C-alpha cells in the first residue's frame, strides 16, 4: 500500500509540473507586453529595461520558469496585470473556499442521491420504480446543463419563486447551483450503483446469506452494499471534474464570486496572471482529487495489490 501511494504521488508530481509548464508557456506567449501594461504607453527605454529586469523578464525562460515554480511553492501567484496593487493569491484565496464548497457539496449530493437511486433501482429491478429511475438516468446524462439550469431557474425561481436567483451567502443560494452541478453525476452514479448492486445481488455469498435466514435488509447492508461500493468510489473524481467545469456555467448564471467567475473576469480584462492562477489551482485540485480517489480505491479493494 505504501509503495502504491509513493508510486501514485510520484506520477502526480510530473503531471503537475508539466501542467505548470504549459500554463507558464501560455502566459509567456500571451499577446501584449507586461512592461507596457504596467508603465502605460509613455515610458523611456531606460525605464522599460529597468522594469523588465525588475520583473525578471530579461532572464532565460528556464530561469523564469524555476522562479515561477518557486513562487508557486510559496502560494505566490504574482500580482494582477490590470490592478498592480492586487495580489493574485489574495484574490484566489477569497474565491477558492466558495468554489470548493460548491464543488464538495455537489459531489456529496451526487454520491448520496446517486447511490440511493441506484441501490433503490437495483433492489426493485424491473419494477415501475426501476423504469422511472432508468428514464431519469438517461435524461440526467443527456440533457445539457445549460437547459437543465434554465428549466430549474424558470420553475423554482421565477414561476414559483421559492429560491433566489441572485445574491450570495445564504444557504438557499446554494440549492440551485448545487442541483445543476449534481444532476449529471447523480445520473451517472445511479447507473454505476445500480449495475454493481445488481451484480452483487447475484453472487454466491448473497445466496448463502439469504439461505442462512438473514433478513433482506441485513443482506443488503452487510453483504451487498459493501461489495458494490467500490465502483461508486471511482466516479467521485469524475463528479469533481464535472463540478469544476460546471462552475464556469453556474458561477456565471448565479453570479457566484468563485474561482471560475474570477477567471472569466480575468479573461475579459486580459488579466493573464489571474487566469493562469485560476487554471493552475483547478488543475492541481483535480490532480489531488484523482490521487485521493485512486489511493482510496486501492485501499478499499483487496483484489488490487501493488
Amino acid at each position, binding site marked *: 500500500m505504501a509503495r502504491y501511494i509513493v508510486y501514485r504521488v510520484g506520477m502526480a508530481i*510530473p*503531471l*503537475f509540473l*508539466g*501542467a505548470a509548464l*504549459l*500554463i507558464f508557456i*501560455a*502566459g509567456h*506567449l*500571451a*499577446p501584449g507586453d507586461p512592461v507596457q501594461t504596467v508603465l502605460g504607453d509613455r515610458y523611456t527605454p531606460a525605464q522599460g529595461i529597468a522594469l523588465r529586469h525588475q520583473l525578471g523578464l530579461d532572464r532565460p525562460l528556464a530561469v523564469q520558469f524555476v522562479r515561477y515554480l518557486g513562487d508557486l511553492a510559496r502560494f505566490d501567484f504574482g500580482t494582477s496585470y490590470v490592478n498592480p496593487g492586487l495580489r493574485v493569491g489574495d484574490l484566489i484565496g477569497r474565491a477558492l473556499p466558495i468554489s470548493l464548497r460548491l464543488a464538495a457539496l455537489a459531489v456529496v449530493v451526487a454520491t448520496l442521491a446517486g447511490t440511493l437511486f441506484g441501490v433503490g433501482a437495483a433492489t426493485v429491478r424491473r419494477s415501475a420504480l426501476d423504469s422511472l429511475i*432508468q428514464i431519469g*438516468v*438517461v435524461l*440526467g*446524462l*443527456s*440533457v*445539457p*446543463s*445549460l*437547459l437543465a439550469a*434554465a428549466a430549474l*431557474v*424558470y420553475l423554482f425561481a*421565477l414561476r414559483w419563486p421559492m429560491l433566489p436567483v441572485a445574491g450570495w451567502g445564504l444557504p438557499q443560494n446554494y440549492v440551485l447551483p448545487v442541483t445543476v*452541478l449534481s*444532476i*449529471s453525476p447523480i445520473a*451517472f452514479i445511479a*447507473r*454505476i450503483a445500480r*449495475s454493481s448492486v445488481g451484480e452483487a445481488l447475484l453472487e454466491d455469498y448473497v445466496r448463502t446469506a439469504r439461505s442462512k435466514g438473514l433478513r433482506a435488509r441485513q443482506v443488503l447492508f452487510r453483504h451487498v452494499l459493501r461489495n458494490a461500493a467500490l*465502483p461508486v468510489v471511482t*466516479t467521485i473524481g*469524475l463528479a469533481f*471534474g*464535472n463540478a*469544476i*467545469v*460546471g462552475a*464556469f*456555467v453556474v458561477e*456565471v*448564471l448565479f453570479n457566484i464570486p468563485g474561482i471560475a467567475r474570477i*477567471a*472569466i473576469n*480575468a*479573461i*475579459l480584462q486580459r488579466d*493573464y496572471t489571474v*487566469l*493562469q492562477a485560476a*487554471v493552475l489551482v*483547478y*488543475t492541481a485540485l*483535480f*490532480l489531488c482529487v484523482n490521487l485521493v480517489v485512486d489511493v482510496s480505491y486501492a485501499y478499499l479493494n483487496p483484489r488490487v495489490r501493488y
Partner: protein
Amino acid sequence: MFLMHISIRASDTKRAPAVPAGRARRAGTLVWLARHDRVSAAAMGFLLALVFVSLVGPLVTRYAYDREDLDALFQRPTTAHWLGTDQFGRDLLTRVLYGARVSLSVGASAVIGESLLGITWGTVAGFYGGVVDHVLMRIVDLLIAFPTILLAILVTGIFGPSLVNIVIALVLTAWPAMARTIRSEVVSIREREYVEGARALGASVPWILLRHVVPNVVHLLIVRATLDASFLVLAEATLSFIGIGVQPPRPSWGQMIYESFQYLGSHPWLVVIPATALSLTVISFNLVGEALAALLDPRYRRGRT
C-alpha cells in the same frame, strides 16, 4: 451534462441490436443502423435535417442574423417571424439557423482536427513502441490531467476567441483521449500475423501503417469521433456561453442562451429554443455514437467513462 464522455444508453435497455459480426460492413454501417435501430434512425434523421437547414436556411430567410428591429422587440411568433424576435428585435429562427451553422462547422472542424492528430499520434506511438511510445504518451497523459475544457478556456482566454482559436482549443482538449484509444488498439495489431507477414515480405513501415494498421483502427476512430462530436458541440456552446467562444453579433447557441437568460422570466422561449436545439444535437450525436460503439467496438462496455 457537463462535458463528460458518458454513455447515455442504459445498459439493460440497450436498444442497439447485437449484429452478427459480418453484417456491419463499414461503409454500410450507418445505413444498417438506420434500418435496424429506430432511435439511431431518428437521431441520424435529426442531424441530417439540421445540416440541411443550416446550409439552406440562411439562404432562404429574409433576415440577417444581426439585423435589429427596435420596433419589433420580443415578438411572439408571427408569419413574418416564425419563432418571434429576441430582445433586439432580431429574427429568432434566423439566429437559430445561423447558430446551427456555427455549432456544426466548429464541431466538425474540431472533430476532423482531433481525429487526424489522434490517429497519427496514437498509431505512431503504438506501432513504434519503446521510447517513442513513452514520450508521446506522457504528453497525452499531461493534457488529460487538465479537467475537460479547462485547457480550452486557457487557450481561448489568452489568445482570443477567434473561430480558429476556438477550434484549436477544442482539438487540444479532445485529441489526447482519441490518441490513447487508438494507441491501445495499435499495440495489439502490431503483433498480429498479417503485420508480421507484411514485414517479412519487405513492406515499408508507412505501407504497413496505411495498409494494415490504420484500416483496422478506423472503426474505433469513427465511434470515438461521433461521441466526441457531441462533446465538442457542447464544449463550444459552453465556451460561447461564458463569453470566450463565438463572439457577437455572429450567433451561436451558447451565446444566445447567455444573452437571453436575463429575460427567462418574461420570455422563456428565447432561452428554451436555442437550448433545445443544442440539447437535441448533443443527444443525437451521443445516441448515434453509442449505437455505433455497440456495433463496431467489441470492447465496448457499459459504464464507459
